[in-house]
C-alpha cells in the first residue's frame, strides 16, 4: 500500500532551538492517527509543516505522493486543515467565509453553496448562515472552522484540537464524523490533549516528545509495551520528566509553608 503521508528525517530549528529532531513517519490511507505530545514537543510544528504553513524545514515530506517542497499547491489540495484556535475572519458571515474557502479550493460556486448550507444545517447553524461571526460563541466558530476544513472533500484531514469549545452534541457529531470519514478512506491526523477521545477514535497513536517520535502503534500495542494502563498513564510514563504524582506532591507541599 502506498503511504499517503511520509515524513523522512524532518528537522526544524527556530533560531538555535531545534524543535524537530529527525521525524520519520509513514501513514497509510484510511488511518486515524492520534498525534500526541506535550506543549513544546513539536506537535504543532509537524502540523504546520504538513499544512504548508512552514516551508523552511530539512528533510522530505510527501503528501499523497506529492513532494510538499516541490509542489505545495497540489499537496494542499489533498489536505483539509482545522486549526486549534478559532482563527477566522469573524467580521464575515459563515456563508461569506466558507464561500471564500470554496473559491480558494476552486470548487464550483453551486457545489460549494450546496455543501455549505448542508454542513451548516447539520451543525445547527442554519439560522446563522448570514450572521456575522463576531457575535458567535467559540463553539459556533469552531463548527465553521470544521466545515472549512471539510468543504473540498480532502483525502487527508488534519485536526488540531477540533473539539475545543464544542457542545456535547457537536462533540458526538465530530467523533462520529471522524469514524465515517475514515471508513470512507480519508486519513485523519488528529492532534489533541484529550487522551480519552484519542484513545477511542484513533487506530494508531504517535507520541512525540522533545522533537522526536517516542512511541508509535495502536492503543493495544502501547498497552502491551507499557502495562495495561490508560493512554493518559502511558503518556505520563513516557514523557513526564518527573512523574505526575511528584508534580502533584510538589503542589501539595506549597501548603506546608503556612
Amino acid at each position, binding site marked *: 500500500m502506498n503511504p499517503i503521508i511520509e515524513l523522512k528525517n524532518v528537522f526544524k530549528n527556530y533560531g538555535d532551538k531545534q524543535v524537530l529532531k529527525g521525524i520519520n513517519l509513514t501513514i497509510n490511507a484510511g488511518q486515524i492517527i492520534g498525534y500526541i505530545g506535550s506543549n513544546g514537543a513539536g506537535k504543532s510544528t509537524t502540523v504546520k509543516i504538513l499544512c*504548508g504553513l512552514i516551508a523552511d524545514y530539512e528533510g522530505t515530506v510527501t503528501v499523497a505522493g506529492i513532494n510538499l517542497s516541490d509542489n505545495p499547491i*497540489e499537496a494542499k489540495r489533498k*489536505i483539509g486543515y482545522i486549526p486549534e484556535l478559532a482563527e477566522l475572519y469573524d467580521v464575515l458571515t459563515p456563508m461569506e467565509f466558507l464561500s471564500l474557502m470554496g473559491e480558494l479550493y476552486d470548487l464550483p460556486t453551486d457545489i460549494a453553496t450546496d455543501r455549505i448550507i448542508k454542513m451548516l444545517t447539520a451543525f445547527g447553524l442554519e439560522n446563522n448562515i448570514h450572521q456575522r461571526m463576531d457575535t458567535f460563541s467559540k463553539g459556533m466558530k469552531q463548527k465553521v472552522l470544521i466545515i472549512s476544513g471539510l468543504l473540498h472533500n480532502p483525502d487527508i484531514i488534519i485536526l488540531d484540537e477540533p473539539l475545543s469549545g464544542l457542545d456535547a452534541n457537536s462533540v458526538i457529531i465530530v467523533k462520529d464524523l471522524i469514524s465515517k470519514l475514515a471508513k470512507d478512506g480519508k486519513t485523519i491526523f488528529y492532534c489533541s490533549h484529550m487522551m480519552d477521545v484519542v484513545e477511542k477514535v484513533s487506530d494508531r497513536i504517535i507520541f512525540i516528545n522533545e522533537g522526536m517520535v517516542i512511541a508509535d502503534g495502536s492503543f493495544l500495542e502501547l498497552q502491551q509495551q507499557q502495562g495495561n494502563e490508560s493512554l493518559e498513564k502511558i503518556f505520563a510514563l513516557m514523557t513526564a520528566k518527573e512523574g505526575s504524582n511528584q508534580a502533584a506532591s510538589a503542589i501539595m507541599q506549597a501548603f506546608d509553608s503556612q
Partner: protein
Amino acid sequence: MINRFFLGIALLPAALYSRMGVNIKHLKAILKAKLVMDDRRPSSLQQTKQKTKNKSIKMATLFTMLMMALLGLFFNIPFFIVADPITQFTLYFSFFITILAFTIISDFTSVLIDIRDNYIILPKPVNDTTVLLSRLLHIVIHTSKLVISLNIAGIITVFLLKGFYGAAILIFLIPFATLFTIFLINALYILVLKITTPEKFKALINYFQIAFAILIFGVYQLVPRLIEKASLQAYAIPEKSWGILAPPYWFAAAWKVFYGGGSLYLIAVTILSILMPILSVWLVVKYLAPTFNQKLTLITGSDQGEQTIKTEHKGLAFKRKGLAEKLAALFTQKGSERMGFLFTWKMIGRSRDYKMKTFPSIGYLMVYFFVILFRNKDLLSTDKLRDSSNLGTKILLLTIIYMLGFTILQAMSNLKQSDKYKAAWIYFITPIQEPGNIISGAVKATIAIFFLPLAIALIILSVAFIGWNIIPNLLLGISNQLLICFFVAYISMREFPFARTATNKGTGFIRGLFSLIFPVTLGILHYFIYNFIPVVLLLALLSLIGTWLIAGSIKRRDWNSVQSEYRE
C-alpha cells in the same frame, strides 16, 4: 459599490497578472473578502465611538472616505490665507503627509500584522505570487481610498484658483508624496521594532490610534482659532533655508517649478522631490520590507510560547514595589480595598478596550482646555494672574480647576464596563465581606491615575505664575473635585469595576444630569467666595470632611446594595 469600483480598477491588468503566474480567481476572491472586512472594521475615528455603542460597523469605507474628504478641506486653508505659493503648498503637503501617515498607522497596521492569513489563506492551494499580489493590491487600494479622499477638495480648490494646469501638477505630485509617506511609515515601523518588543509594538499602535483621534479633534478645534490672517498673509518660506530639510517643501518647490519655473535652487529641490520617493521605494523594497517581514514573524509569534513565559519569569524574579503599590499603601487599607486599587490600576493600564474609550475623551477635554486658554490668552500675563480682583482671571482659573474634575468623571464612567465583564465571577466566588471596599479601591485608583498628576501640575503652575496666595482657593478647588468624584461614585458606582457589558445602559439620565450639575454648582459657589479667604479655608475643610464621609459610605457598601449584570 466603492469597493467594487476599486476592485475593478485593481484587476484591470488581469492579463498581466496572469502572465506573472497569479491565479485571478483566487486573487479576486481574497481581495473581495478583504475589502468586505475593511468595510466592517471600524476606523480609529469610529472605533472610539463604536466601543461604547457596541454596534456592528457597516460601510466603514464610505465613512472613512467622507471623514477624510472633510479633513482634506482643512488642507485648503493655506490657499486662502497665505500669498506665497511655495508656502501654500508646503503647508498643504505637510497636512497631507501627516494625516496620511497617522491614518495608515492607526487604521491599517492591525491589518498588516494580522496573523489570521497564516491559518486561513496559507494552508489553501493558493500560490505565493497570488498571496503576495493580494497583499500588495490590498495596501494600494486602501491607500488610494485615503489619498483620493484627502486630496479631492485640494484638487478642486487648486483648479479654481490656479487653473487646470495647476491642478494637474498637484495630481502628478500626490503619488510621489504618497510613496514618500509610505517610506516614512515603514522606516518608523522598523525603528519602533528595533527599540521595543513586538508586544509593545501592538500597544503603541493603540496609542497611535488614540493620538490620531485627538489630533483630528485638535485640528478641528484649534486650527481655525490659531490662524492670524494678517501675519500669515505676507509670510513666505525663504529660499535656501530650513525648507530643504522638510519633504513637503520639495513637493511645493516642484509645483512652483512645473507651474511657472523657478531658480536653479528650486529646480534642484524639484529633482529631489522626484528622486527621493523613487529612492525611498527602492529602500523599502530592498531593505526595509524584508526586515519588517522578519520582525512581523516575531509579532505573530509573540502571542504564544516562549516570549510570554520569559516575561512572566522575569516578573516573578524581579518583583519590586512600584508606584502603584506605593500609592495603594498611601491611600488604601490593607485587604480588599488595596486589591481593588491595584487591580483597577493594572486594568486601566493594560485594557485596550478601556483606553480606547477613555483616553480620547480625556484628550478632547484637554483640547477644550487649550481652546479656553487660547481664547483668554490676554489674561495669561503674570500681572493679571496675580491680580485677584481681576474678574476674567478668576473665571479662567476656576474653569480650569473645575474642568480637570471632568477628566476623572469621564474615566470613572467607563470604569464599570469591560469586554471581559464575564471575568467578574471572581468577585462572587471569593469570600468578600464588604464589596464596597473593592469599589472604593477602584475609585481611588482612578483618582490616582487621572487626577493626581493633573492636580500636582496645577499646584506647581499656579504657585509659579500666581503666587502662594492662590493656595487656599486651590485647596478648595481640589477638595471639591475629590468631593465631586466620591459623590458621583457614590450615586453611580454600584457595581464592581470592569463587570458590565458596554451595551448596558448604566447610569440613569437623572444621575448623569446630577453628576453634571453638582460640579457646576460648586464652581459657581466657589466663584462668589473666591476673595474671602477664611470662608474658602473653612469650606475646603468641610469639603474634605464630606469627601471622607462619602468615601466611608462607599467602603461600607454591602452585598445588598451592589448590582451586577453577572448575577442577573
